[in-house]
């Protein structure tokens, strides 16, 4: 396994004395996740199911708005959510020095 080989590289990182960075890293990850999941729930179950009828009274380009969220808008948002998560996690990884962009080399 590539990871295992990396971790056991002689002269590599000594075991972390201070593991508090791990907690901070994890907390940032969780916070980002919760915000994005709240948006995920709002556009799909919120606009597309629970509030679809009141939202349908607004019409844009022929689409009742609730229907548009249920069949189009929610999907656009899902794609964006995953992109934002990947980009933001890159920033968090960089900040804590656990980025995989260099190290074993691949810009995967």
């Amino acid at each position, binding site marked *: 396994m590539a990871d295992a080989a990396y971790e056991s590289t002689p002269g590599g*990182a000594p075991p972390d004395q201070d593991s508090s960075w791990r907690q901070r890293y994890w907390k940032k990850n969780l916070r980002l996740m919760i915000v994005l999941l709240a948006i995920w729930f709002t556009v799909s179950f919120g606009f597309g*199911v629970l509030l679809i009828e009141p939202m349908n009274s607004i019409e*844009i380009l*022929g689409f009742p708005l609730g229907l548009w969220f249920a069949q189009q808008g929610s*999907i656009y948002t899902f794609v964006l959510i*995953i992109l934002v998560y*990947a980009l933001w996690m890159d920033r968090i990884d960089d900040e*804590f020095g656990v980025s995989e962009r260099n*190290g074993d080399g691949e810009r995967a």
Partner: protein
Amino acid sequence: MSDIQFWTFFFIILTFGIYIFIAWRSRVKDTKEFYVASQGVPTIANGAAVAADWMSAASFIGMAGLIAFLGSDGSVYLMGWTGGYVLLALLLAPYLRKWGKFTVPEFVGDRYSESVRIVAAVAAIVVSFTYVVGQMNGGGIVFSRFLGLNLTWGVVVAAAIIFFYAVLGGMKGITYTQVAQYSVLITAYLIPAVAVAQQTTGIPVPQISYGRILAELDALSVEFGLHEFTEAFAGRDGGQIDVFLVTASLMLGTAGLPHVIIRFYTTKTVRGARYSAFWALFFISLLYLTAPAVGAFTKLNLLQGVRGATVDQLPAWIETWGATGLVTVADGVNTIQSVSNDAASGADLIVNNDILVLASPEIGGLPAPIIGLMAAGGMAAAMSTAAGLLLVISSAASHDLYFRVIKKEGASEGQQMLVGRVAMAAAIVIAIFAGINPPAFVAQVVAFAFGLAASTFFPILLLGIFWKRANGVGATAGMLTGLIFTSTYMIYTLEVFGTGSNDHILGVSPEGIGAIGALVNFTVTIVVSKLTAPPSHEVQEMVESIRYPQQRKVGADV
């Protein structure tokens, strides 16, 4: 040979040739290549492969037709089958990739216990098999309609090609073939959609222009005894609760389906898994955003085509598709007054959901090459999904059951590969027989596969990653109660298991029960884990370690 047959042969032979060429170029030698393509698949390619793997005959052939008749409520499939990727990308894929093993049963086996691994392996085989039979059948429909082969030969030909590249190339061959198949299927889906949108509204962007025809479509639908396309909660008997639960079940099921999760093991890094999920959903969304437009345009063209026409003036596609038995005009009808997708409705014209997409170029009056391309696209969708599923069946049977349970030690690489290939070959042969004579439950593949995945896999994967305290006893209990709860309700409400069908309780359809099954699983796993001993220190350490992409580098100061 008709024009349509010529072009169908042309595109099918051309695309099959490409797949075989790719498979030959990427044939493999060891198990790591066979199961996870050496974890060396570039991110965008992996995303396209996931998309092809994901979009089955049901997505390509069936979904737009379903939406045409369900109208607004067709959103359960659109949101359900894409929203699950958000859960997958944020909650599962990066962590499972960090774990770094071959299969889903392997993860739960390491994380919980051997018994959980066995339950998971068996569940993965059952779910994947149900799904694969649906693909064989979908491929058979394409062959029998467009090439005039009978269904049996259609299924055998499709299976033989899958056999060739899956057994030869394993995950590597499958992945690169799927990239080609994605290109074929998305082209085949978008070209007719753009052409119809341009022809009907003058705007060649179907996702935007179908808004323009909704008012007209609503009026026409009512005229033919159907409900309005834009009316919410009219397409499903259970109303809002059911729409909510079906959407939730499909999302949780999507995130828990083994043949999707396994694809995130093929990336190089954890970061790669995150971006793969993005590319996968991006590629999937191209088809899913188009599907409701295809449904709306095809329905409009269909209704306009039969409006006021006497039986001998009906459009030609009704007769050609009538030969498959999927379109019927009621006896003694003079002009078509009512249309339905339900054979029991007694409407003048009955159109099966499954033919709307394949027939859409004909219904819209598009030229023969486009119709032939459509057939190649349908085949690509069916074959790419079938191949991915067969790989899961093979890895669960050989890697997780045979070598863990029966022959525990001393298996060489060569032996493991041989057993993997034999398991795949056996699965294909059984799938051919089942594809020709589908068992009744295959028609309920959506309820069955997604309900099962949502109520068994999703909760224990999520808790396994985010809650260190979850243990083997809890997970076993949770999985089994989720499974029993969900399947009991399905047997209660569906006729296909040889029992009578009963009324839905509180309007919850069998497709929606998986979400409740997942809640049951969560509750049981948590309660039982709390009441029993916590997992070992090593397991808790492993759970901790998958939260971080890699060891920190020396000198990183935060």
